[in-house]
């Protein structure tokens, strides 16, 4: 598999290498596009000047710029296709600056310092059948070259519509944790630094993985509690459950927002009740719940909906939530509005009309963040200034069914 993969990559590189020198210079700079001149027009002008000056083309393999807080990863599972794609986007210039191939229903993660990104992957020897191989691929964020290829024994990955917190990095970026559903709930430990699979930790009937620190992570259990799993030296792992923090009728969505840097877990229900849990101490502290929507709004059919329905900005302590008027059981349909909520008081700061059918929200973690709104149907990432609520840019043609936004809290 590795060889086949490498040759594909080689072919892609050859394609990239056809880019001319002038185009290359423009790509490398990834400068913001002025309103007056599109990126394409700027490249054409530069290439023409290059040619007029009598300079030769010098094709080479380009590198993406150094990662920054506005680097956005958009994962396209392609509606359950056997091969998927990760688009690497510069939020400032609203341009694609790289791509990486993934297998079936990959789980993307990005190192918190931007130093690498990785995909927990599944491939088969005959495209979608034959021998199954699960592996973790760690990639360089500038070249997209593989840094590590770590095999996962006995095909342990949970194949499911991409939930970001089914795979997570510890805060030191040295360990990847991934979820196994069948034949029993377990969490796989991958030593990213040592480039090897470590072990499977058997866990109770719990889901998702939220690392509180480098040694422990939390999960959400069927009975409505959290489980704290402490990874001990030489495989002596401990599991301890918290109190039950929500009723059976509170349906918590599959895409909570989690900020590993301050341990904040923001977990909406189908009706827009927001559970917040502070994991920063290494123990779960349940904060007061907040209603994102008023009784009146709920009566009028307002409810959260989409894929990644919630985003959390750590520095400003703000929650962004996708909402719209919808029929019951339409919780996966896109939304046209984003609520901006003060996480501390629960007060609504703003309601942004997005102007598009949006499935997923993300936010950059710099001081004046960009709000990312991804439309799976339009295959477009729309970029907003959440302060003004204005759309400031967009990136289209993002594969077949892009669903997942990942940013690094650098």
């Amino acid at each position, binding site marked *: 598999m590795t060889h086949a993969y490498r040759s594909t990559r080689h072919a892609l590189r050859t394609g990239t290498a056809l880019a001319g020198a002038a185009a290359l210079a423009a790509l490398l700079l990834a400068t913001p596009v002025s309103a007056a001149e599109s990126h394409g027009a700027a490249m054409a002008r530069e290439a023409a000047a290059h040619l007029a000056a009598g300079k030769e083309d010098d094709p080479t393999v380009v590198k993406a710029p150094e990662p920054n807080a506005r680097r956005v990863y958009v994962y396209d599972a392609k509606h359950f296709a056997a091969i998927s794609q990760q688009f690497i986007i510069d939020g400032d210039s609203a341009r694609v600056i790289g791509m990486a191939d993934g297998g079936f229903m990959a789980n993307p993660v990005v190192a918190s310092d931007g130093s690498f990104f990785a995909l927990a992957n599944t491939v088969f020897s005959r495209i979608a059948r034959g021998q199954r191989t699960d592996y973790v691929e760690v990639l360089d964020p500038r070249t997209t070259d593989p840094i590590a290829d770590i095999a996962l024994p006995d095909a342990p990955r949970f194949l499911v519509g991409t939930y970001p917190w089914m795979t997570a990095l510890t805060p030191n970026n040295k360990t990847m944790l991934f979820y196994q559903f*069948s*034949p029993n*709930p377990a969490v796989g430990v991958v030593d990213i630094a040592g480039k090897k699979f470590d072990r499977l930790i058997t866990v109770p*009937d719990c889901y998702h993985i939220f690392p509180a620190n480098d040694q422990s992570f939390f999960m959400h259990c*069927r009975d409505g509690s959290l489980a704290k799993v402490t990874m001990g030296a030489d495989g002596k792992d401990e599991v301890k459950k918290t109190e039950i923090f929500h009723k059976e009728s509170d349906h918590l969505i599959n895409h909570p927002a989690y900020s590993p840097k301050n341990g904040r877990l923001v977990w909406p229900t189908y009706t827009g009740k927001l559970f917040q849990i502070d994991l920063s101490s290494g123990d779960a502290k349940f904060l007061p719940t907040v209603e994102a929507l008023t009784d009146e709004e709920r009566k009028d059919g307002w409810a959260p909906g989409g894929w990644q329905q919630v985003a959390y900005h750590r520095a400003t302590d703000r929650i962004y939530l996708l909402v719209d008027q919808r029929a019951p059981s339409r919780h996966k349909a896109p939304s046209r509005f984003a609520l901006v909520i003060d996480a501390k008081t629960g007060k609504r700061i703003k309601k942004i009309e997005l102007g598009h059918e949006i499935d997923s929200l993300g936010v950059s973690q710099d001081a004046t963040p960009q709000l990312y709104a991804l439309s799976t149907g339009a295959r477009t990432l729309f970029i907003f200034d959440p302060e003004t609520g204005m759309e400031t840019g967009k990136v289209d043609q993002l594969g077949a069914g892009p669903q997942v936004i990942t940013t690094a809290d650098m």
Partner: protein
Amino acid sequence: MRSILFAAVLAALPLAAAHAGEAVEVVTGATASAADVKIAKMKFQTPEVKIKVGETVTWTNTEPLPHNVHFKAGGPVEKDVEGPMLRANQTYSLKFNAPGTYNYICTPHPFMTGKVIVE
């Protein structure tokens, strides 16, 4: 499709004979069970049953949500024994030919667990 095919095969073949000699064999037709396990509310209602070697356990799903019993390879079972999905009021019987503890799950609901202790 696969489970329909499996069910068809079950009906057509005297599987009990085919599996004779193995730790677990599928029993078809009317049978006397030493233990009956009802499946309801996402649970095996008797999660632990004790029987003697050569006795049979029968599972009955009592709800519309399909369930099965699935013994993973390991312990007394050499190869995976993955029972067909049972719809409401369907049953499945297994005869246990060797002593030991047989742990099982429901394939799509791995949090549903049970065990058969054969003495």
